[in-house]
């Protein structure tokens, strides 16, 4: 079990700047994020799209913003736990006991939820029957490509993940590639490569088709795919892969006894604390009168929540407000003074 002054859920821009504020005022913190990389929506949804409303930054992309925030965190030692989702938050005396899907547990007086619109999860096939085969013969990501050797694999999707895997697996498997339209959104070079493999008979391409049904007892035996004109085709297949990108789900946060409003968490505007003492929500996931879902609002909310954390993490000390321009304390923490 790890002890920390504050645990941040979410490594998006708000979570990163909140970590900066906590470290600056002398608290330690760790960050958990369900994605395998740092940056949240900025990296997952719009890494290349320019943002024009970050104060004093006339223009930057989601990726640049993330890198700048990481640079700003460089003087500090912040531990990240990526590809882990927080599953449980439980009261234990004056602390919160937090457990993640990766088997980590934390004991902390402060939990700051900077979770955007929730955690990113793969988008799934719509027929309910697909659940029966999930993680057995039907997957939304590839962990071990060797299981597909010599088998028939049906891959759904039109982006780079679907195309890359279709190309890779066509070397040693029988590959069907199924997509809802004729255009592919993957990189042109990848699309060309796939088309060449289709010509050589290495990939069977079905466009304007979508998943309609799955069949099999214990293991998957075949699937029905349905054309835009309602025609149905049955394909014998041992495995199915679906690549439809990620969706944000509130997930386990809904079970922590917090006051929710649609997919957001109600907070006060002094500490950005929820109805549970020591649990805060900042950034897109919090809600209060006048809330603006802007990155700049997340920075403000994180700065205030960090100050509130100080009281619970250092009950016997008094928090003193200081400026980075003049405070020897802060400059030492930033590594600018011996």
């Amino acid at each position, binding site marked *: 079990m790890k002890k920390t002054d504050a645990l941040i859920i979410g490594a998006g821009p708000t979570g990163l700047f909140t970590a900066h504020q906590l470290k600056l005022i002398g608290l330690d913190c760790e960050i958990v994020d369900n994605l395998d990389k740092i940056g949240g929506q900025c990296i997952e949804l719009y890494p290349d799209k320019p943002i024009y409303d970050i104060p004093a930054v006339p223009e930057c992309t989601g990726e640049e913003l993330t890198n700048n925030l990481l640079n700003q965190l460089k003087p500090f030692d912040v531990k990240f736990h990526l590809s882990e989702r927080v599953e449980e938050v439980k009261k234990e005396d004056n602390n919160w006991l937090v457990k993640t899907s990766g088997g980590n547990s934390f004991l902390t007086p402060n939990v700051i939820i900077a979770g955007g619109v929730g955690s990113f999860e793969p988008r799934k096939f719509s027929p309910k029957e697909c659940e029966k085969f999930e993680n057995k013969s039907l997957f939304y990501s590839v962990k071990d490509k060797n299981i597909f050797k010599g088998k028939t694999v049906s891959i759904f999707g039109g*982006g780079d993940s679907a195309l890359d895997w279709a190309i890779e697996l066509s070397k040693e498997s029988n590959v069907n590639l199924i997509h*809802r339209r004729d255009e592919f959104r993957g990189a042109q070079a990848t699309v060309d490569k796939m088309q060449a493999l289709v010509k050589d008979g290495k990939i069977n391409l079905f466009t304007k088709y979508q998943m309609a049904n799955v069949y099999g007892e214990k293991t998957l035996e075949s699937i029905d795919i349905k054309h835009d004109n309602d025609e149905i085709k049955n394909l014998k297949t041992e495995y199915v892969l679906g690549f439809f990108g990620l969706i944000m789900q509130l997930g386990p946060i809904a079970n922590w006894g917090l006051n929710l409003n649609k*997919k957001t968490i109600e907070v006060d505007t002094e500490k950005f604390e929820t109805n549970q003492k020591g649990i805060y929500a900042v950034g897109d996931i919090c809600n209060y009168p006048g809330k603006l879902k802007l990155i700049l609002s997340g920075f403000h909310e994180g700065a205030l929540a960090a100050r509130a954390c100080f009281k619970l993490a250092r009950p016997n000390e008094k928090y003193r407000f200081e400026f980075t321009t003049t405070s020897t304390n802060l400059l030492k923490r930033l590594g600018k003074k011996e």
Partner: protein
Amino acid sequence: MAKITYITSDNQTHTVEVQNGLTVMEGAVQNDIPGIDADCGGGMACATCHVYVKDDWFNKIPKKEDGEDDMLDMAFEPKTNSRLSCQIIVSDELDGLEVNIPSKQA
């Protein structure tokens, strides 16, 4: 101003007046019409404001721009008349528009 009818998957109809310049997504969210999540807030980045546009209207409203079909690839049960409602901007010409909301957004 345009009267827009949103039909949910359980066949409830909601007809509301939406101001010109707003999107069909905003019209739904501001009027608490269920079934449109709009997680990304209208940035064409999430495909959770997916609607089906009635055939006679589909060809009348402004066409999809680059990127919308890419996002629709990820929508729940996309069809040939699928649109992202955050990309349909309301004008007088859209008076009477009917859209169907899918049973789920993801």
